[in-house]
């Protein structure tokens, strides 16, 4: 069969069996060993593919029902829909005093008292200050109406009892209103009206308050521009009633104090007529006044009422007179502030912020990680008032917020967005501040408080439900914060990572201060470590009495969790980590897991492998099949292998250049795989046995000539192949060894199959033996075909195992020679199996033939006994053979059919031989053998064996010869003896007895025979000579009735006698035509007394030879009659009852000297 087709066939069959639900047959088969191969082979493959798909398709990194992983899913869900980020809850570190369980209603734990303790300033003083500010609110928004509520609010925030409030309120009211300042930043102007003759201006700004015109503030002059940028700050004291005050901003064109002459010189630069007239005017003015005279470009008037307390940055149009003409616009930032000591102010501000925040969190029940900087309206009012009235700049405020919020953050987590945005404000300034300044210190203190929670986020990434994307946002913010903080130089005086807080941080290198960078890595690792310990614990609760199976399951679980963790890391976090802080998160994780997992898995796998009990593997005789009931190695170990393999592949793509400990994971499985192979051969052998037992020996379908067990057996091989492909052993030498082992095992299975198949059909016939006739059934043929099918499938199947690839890789890895040796080993194993199987097939065929032989023998015996004509046993024999051969021919392939024919012939020849022998003993007449011979001929023709050139034809012809001899009448048999002698004589080249020369001539009436001479006659007398004469007989004498022997004259004392005598022999035409008739020349020695003659020697010639050499001299070697071991003599010997034969033999014995 074409190899490819065959495989297609197998494949299709297997496909079918995959598609169709397993049949009853398969069920039975698989039940026998619990579907061992299916589990290992396709089943595992399916499973692993499923796994793959899971990893590929599941975009939600934390599927809701992820078992065992979400040990923190127990976190109480907040029923309020607005607080969807409850999942953001973080398991706090041990060294953080805050207790998670107190979330929710108990947030008021963070009481003012708490804050009070930390605050060095008397809360009452701050309260007084705040009240004072409220009473002296500034900015456009303030009104009397809201003042009352603000006071109420403040009272609440500060938790001041009524009595105290009144007292303090009194004091605050009595206090002088604060000294205010108006802070103006002149930023820039645009589209200024050109004032100079050259089409440009030299603008500068003058500011003053309406109430105090004399006190003017001038900016610098920007020359030759219509879009000047100043960015200059001014602080104007406000004397009284800021509400009624108006700020006036004027932009002037600067004119230097030029002389008339200078101006005239400018004539050359003048542009156009207008410019000229302008210049003329200037010249005139200069000439008349003699002093500089700046020109007003435009003016903006701003009522301080319109300025909010937080200040504002706004464009103002410049105006002059009532003209609507655009004179350009100016951008200014205007803010009010109070005069206050900045340190005191910022300290006040920090405390105020804390109080406000605590109140905010308390009153609005803000969830953790939620608050992002937005106060309620009143709190905001108080805050801004304080900021402004304390003269705090935005940066100052930011710093205060940073500090205050980070403090609160320690106890009640705030949204990281808040800190990130504060950092945005601070970032530009912080590096310019003196390293040892108070601000820097404040900043880092805040950072120090904030960082633990940042790292906590990093460490507890796993415990989040991130399907709602919140964690990604948080992580993004945290990483932003970290990346910003990274850019700042940490003052040497600050210990950013105190041991008390960073318990999880390993201080290996105490000399080198931890940087944010390596703490990030440490945080990632520590998070991974904690997580791993948790999952380890989850899996190993009943550690001590765990079975190996459970341990392995546990390992699988751990690896899968780690793997999904990595998957998640790659899918969700990697991008963030890389973009924000240039850290490859998943690689870091993998490096960490690598050693940890190696530690865990190696120990367990090696332990499990070493626990494996040695198996009772049957040796090559397959005399027994070991009991497999207690060989229960689940698929688990192999599953672990596959999981690790996939995990390792992931690792290699993550860390392509790293020396991973896991890379050599497969070495742990050496023993396991070996064990599996041993189990698999035992299971395979058992499964084959089962398959054979279940085999009904019916063709699988109409197209094929083999039955179910062959398909089942190949299916087992197919499963082994899948296992091998799945194993994909990384080590080349190892994979050669395994494949050699598998090849060897499969070969053994094939041999075993053949052996058991033979037994099975033999058993069938034993049952049928009761009937005296062996019926060659289809089952036999199927059995033979099955064996042959398996045998033929073997080489291509082994090819499918990829042995060639393994060998090629070996060649690349080692040397070509090594690979060659390995290749020849595998080839030798396969060849052995093929040979053995072929022998088994032949043996089975021989067995079939032997089983057929008794029937054949019976028919043959019967057929030979009775006369040919009225016997039907020959017909019955032919029918029997015909039927059997028909079955064989239809069902067997050509090669096996021929083998069967050969075997039958072999049997037949034995039978016939036996028949001949036994019947010779019974002294059967020649007719019996004639019958037998006829039978043989019939069979030969029906077998059409004549065409085939098998060696058995020779045997057949020998049997035929034997039969022929025995079928001859005695006279013919004797003649046969003479012919044999004649043949022998012709073969002699020389003769010790001498030669005889004759010539002959046939005539119409007969034969003219001339006896010419004899030479070198052996001497018979004492004188060394002889007295010879020749006597001539015609043989067989039955044909030549009436012929008297002829005799020559005696030639005395001559060893070279010249007889030269002619005889005329009368022959009828019939006699003449019998070409095998012989003439016997006896040369005799006449003895002295002439009484008797001594026999010297004899020679023969056939008529045929005479005719051929007619008229020529014929030289013949003389010989003596011998009682040879010839077939014809033996046949004669059997005819003890035959007088003729007896006499002939007696004569011959007398004649021969021996």
């Amino acid at each position, binding site marked *: 069969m074409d190899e490819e087709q065959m495989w297609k066939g197998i494949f299709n069959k297997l496909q079918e069996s995959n598609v169709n639900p397993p049949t009853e047959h398969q069920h039975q088969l698989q039940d026998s060993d619990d579907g061992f191969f299916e589990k290992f082979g396709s089943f595992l493959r399916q499973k692993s593919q499923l796994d793959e798909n899971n990893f590929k398709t599941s975009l939600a990194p934390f599927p809701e029902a992820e078992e065992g992983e979400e040990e923190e899913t127990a976190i109480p869900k907040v029923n309020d829909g607005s607080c969807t980020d409850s999942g953001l809850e973080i398991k706090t570190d041990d060294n953080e005093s805050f207790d998670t369980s107190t979330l929710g209603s108990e947030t008021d734990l963070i009481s003012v008292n708490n804050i009070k303790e930390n605050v060095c300033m008397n809360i009452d003083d701050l309260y007084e200050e705040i009240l004072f500010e409220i009473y002296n609110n500034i900015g456009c928004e303030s009104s009397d109406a809201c003042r009352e509520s603000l006071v109420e609010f403040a009272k609440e925030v500060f938790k001041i009892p009524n009595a105290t409030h009144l007292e303090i309120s009194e004091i605050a009211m009595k206090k002088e209103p604060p000294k205010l300042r108006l802070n103006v930043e002149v930023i820039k102007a645009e589209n200024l009206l050109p004032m100079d003759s050259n089409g440009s201006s030299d603008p500068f700004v003058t500011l003053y308050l309406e109430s105090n015109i004399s006190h003017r503030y001038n900016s610098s002059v920007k020359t030759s521009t219509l879009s000047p940028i100043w960015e200059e700050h001014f602080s104007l004291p406000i004397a009284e009633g800021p509400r009624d005050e108006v700020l006036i901003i004027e932009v002037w064109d600067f004119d230097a104090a030029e002389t008339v002459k200078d101006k005239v010189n400018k004539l050359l630069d003048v542009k156009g007529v207008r410019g000229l007239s302008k210049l003329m005017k200037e010249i005139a003015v200069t000439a008349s006044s003699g002093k500089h005279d700046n020109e007003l470009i435009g003016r903006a008037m701003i009522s301080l009422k319109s300025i909010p307390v937080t200040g504002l940055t706004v464009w103002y149009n410049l105006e002059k007179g009532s003209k609507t003409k655009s004179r350009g616009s100016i951008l200014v930032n205007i803010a009010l502030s109070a005069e206050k000591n900045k340190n005191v102010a910022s300290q006040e501000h920090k405390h105020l912020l804390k109080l406000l925040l605590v109140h905010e969190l308390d009153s609005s029940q803000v969830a953790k990680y939620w608050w992002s900087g937005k106060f309620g309206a009143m709190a905001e009012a108080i805050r801004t008032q304080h900021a402004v009235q304390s003269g705090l700049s935005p940066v100052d405020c930011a710093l205060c917020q940073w500090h205050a919020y980070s403090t609160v953050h320690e106890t009640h987590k705030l949204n990281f967005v808040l800190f990130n945005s504060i950092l945005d404000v601070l970032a530009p300034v912080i590096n310019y501040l003196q390293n040892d300044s108070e601000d820097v210190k404040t900043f880092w203190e805040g950072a120090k408080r904030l960082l633990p929670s940042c790292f906590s986020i990093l460490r507890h990434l796993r415990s989040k439900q991130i399907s709602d994307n919140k964690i990604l946002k948080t992580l993004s913010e945290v990483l932003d914060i970290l990346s910003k903080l990274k850019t700042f130089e940490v003052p040497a005086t600050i210990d950013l990572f105190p041991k008390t807080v960073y318990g999880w941080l390993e201080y290996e290198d105490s000399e080198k201060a931890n940087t944010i960078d390596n703490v990030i890595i440490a945080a990632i690792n520590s998070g991974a470590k904690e997580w791993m310990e948790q999952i380890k614990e989850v899996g190993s609760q009943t550690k001590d009495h765990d079975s190996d199976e459970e341990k392995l399951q546990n390992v699988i679980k751990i690896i899968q969790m780690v793997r999904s963790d990595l998957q998640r890391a790659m899918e969700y976090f990697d991008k963030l980590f890389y973009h924000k802080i240039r850290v490859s998160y998943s690689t870091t994780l993998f490096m960490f897991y690598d050693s940890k997992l190696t530690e865990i898995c190696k120990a367990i796998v090696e332990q499990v492998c070493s626990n494996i009990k040695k198996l009772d593997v049957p*040796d090559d005789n397959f005399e027994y099949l070991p009991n497999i009931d207690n060989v229960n190695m689940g698929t688990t170990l192999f599953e672990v292998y596959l999981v690790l393999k996939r995990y390792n592949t992931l690792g290699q793509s993550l860390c392509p250049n790293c020396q991973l400990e896991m890379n050599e994971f497969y070495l742990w499985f050496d023993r396991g795989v070996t064990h599996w192979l*041993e189990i698999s051969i035992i299971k395979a052998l058992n499964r084959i046995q089962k398959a054979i037992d279940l085999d009904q020996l019916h063709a699988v379908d109409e197209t094929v000539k083999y039955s179910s067990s062959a398909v089942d057996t190949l299916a087992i091989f197919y499963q082994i192949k899948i296992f091998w492909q799945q194993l994909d052993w990384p080590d080349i*030498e190892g994979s050669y*060894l395994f494949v050699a*082992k598998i090849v060897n095992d499969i070969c053994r299975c094939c041999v075993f199959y053949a052996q058991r198949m033979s037994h099975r059909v033999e058993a069938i016939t034993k049952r049928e033996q009761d009937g005296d006739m062996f019926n060659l059934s289809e089952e036999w043929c199927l059995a033979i075909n099955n064996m042959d099918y398996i045998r033929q499938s073997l080489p291509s199947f082994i090819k499918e195992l990829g042995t060639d690839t393994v060998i090629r890789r070996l060649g690349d890895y080692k040397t070509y020679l090594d690979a060659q040796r390995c290749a020849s080993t595998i080839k030798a194993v396969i*060849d052995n199996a093929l*040979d053995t199987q072929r*022998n088994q097939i032949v043996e089975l065929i021989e067995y079939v033939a032997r089983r057929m032989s008794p029937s054949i023998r019976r028919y043959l015996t019967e057929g030979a006994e009775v006369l040919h004509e009225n016997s039907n046993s020959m017909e019955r024999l032919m029918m029997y053979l015909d039927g059997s051969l028909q079955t064989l021919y239809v069902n067997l392939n050509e090669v096996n059919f021929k083998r069967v024919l*050969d075997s039958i012939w072999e049997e037949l020849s034995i039978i016939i031989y036996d028949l001949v022998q036994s019947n010779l003993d019974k002294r059967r007449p020649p007719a019996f053998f004639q019958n037998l011979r006829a039978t043989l001929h019939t069979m030969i023709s029906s077998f059409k064996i004549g065409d085939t050139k098998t060696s058995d034809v020779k045997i057949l012809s*020998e049997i035929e010869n034997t039969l022929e001899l025995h079928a001859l009448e005695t006279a013919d048999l004797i003649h046969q003896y003479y012919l044999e002698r004649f043949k022998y004589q012709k073969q002699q080249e020389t003769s010790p007895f001498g030669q005889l020369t004759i010539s002959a001539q046939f005539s119409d009436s007969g034969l003219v025979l001339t006896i010419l001479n004899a030479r070198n006659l052996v001497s018979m007398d004492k004188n060394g000579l002889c007295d010879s004469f020749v006597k001539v007989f015609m043989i067989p004498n039955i044909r030549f009735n009436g012929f008297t022997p002829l005799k020559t004259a005696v030639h005395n004392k001559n060893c070279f006698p010249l007889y030269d005598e002619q005889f005329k022999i009368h022959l009828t035409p019939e006699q003449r035509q019998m070409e095998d008739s012989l003439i016997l020349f006896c040369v005799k020695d006449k003895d002295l007394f002439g009484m008797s003659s001594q026999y010297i020697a004899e020679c023969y010639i056939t008529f045929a030879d005479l005719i051929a050499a007619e008229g020529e001299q014929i030289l013949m070697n003389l010989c003596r009659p011998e009682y040879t071991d010839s077939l014809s003599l033996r046949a004669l010997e059997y005819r003890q009852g035959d007088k003729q034969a007896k006499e002939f033999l007696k004569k011959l014995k007398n004649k021969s000297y021996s």
Partner: protein
Amino acid sequence: MTNMRPPQKSKLLKVVILGDGGVGKSALLTRFVSNRYEENNFHTIGVEFMNKDIAVDGEKYTLQIWDTAGQERFRALRTPFYRGSDMCLLCYALDDRDSLRGLRLWRNEFINYADVQPDRFPFIVVGNKNDIRAERRQVSYEDVQQWCAEHGISAHIETSSKTATNVTDAFVLALRQWKAMERVAEAEQRQHGDTIDLTQPIRLMQRRQCCTGGGTGKAADVVDADDDDGRNTDAAMRSPSSMSRHLFGQSRSSPKAPKTNYQL
């Protein structure tokens, strides 16, 4: 002839060669099987397998020889091949004292994985590199003798694959050992003769029959000398019908008749 079964059947014996790396196991095998010697040193990768027909005392055998890698790292991988062995050649090198000491471990490993009774299993000890100069020799004949005595091994031999000394003899020695063990087992079985289970083939007697697919030429030179013996042994094991065939073959007188078809 292609569809005819090859004529000679011989007993199939599985042989395992063990010993430290570099003692010359593969060289021994190569010399024995293909009568070659390769000067360059190579390591066997895992296992190697070769067939060799051999006639000893009038019986034909096919040795299926598994040569193993001596390196420790192949240990788990090579042990599965020990199963079903009929005899084991423990090899050391005459210029390496440690390799003789190593045999103890090899023997134990083999006994363990092949699951055999050490006193019932034909081990022989083979000292390789017999061709070395006397001063390089580290293992004396007495050393080996003592070692063998300690471990209950009765046969040892010194060979050289390089000079082809005693190579075939080593395998023949092993085979004789095997035969001796078989005889012992057989005798024991006969002693408990009344309980022999006829359905269960007697393991030691009934060997696998196989032909190695070797050409007739190769086979022919082994048969002649002890033709009759071989036939009788086989015939005794065959069914009655093969007996008649046997007689038939014997009675044919023509010397030209092809031997192949009727000799068993």
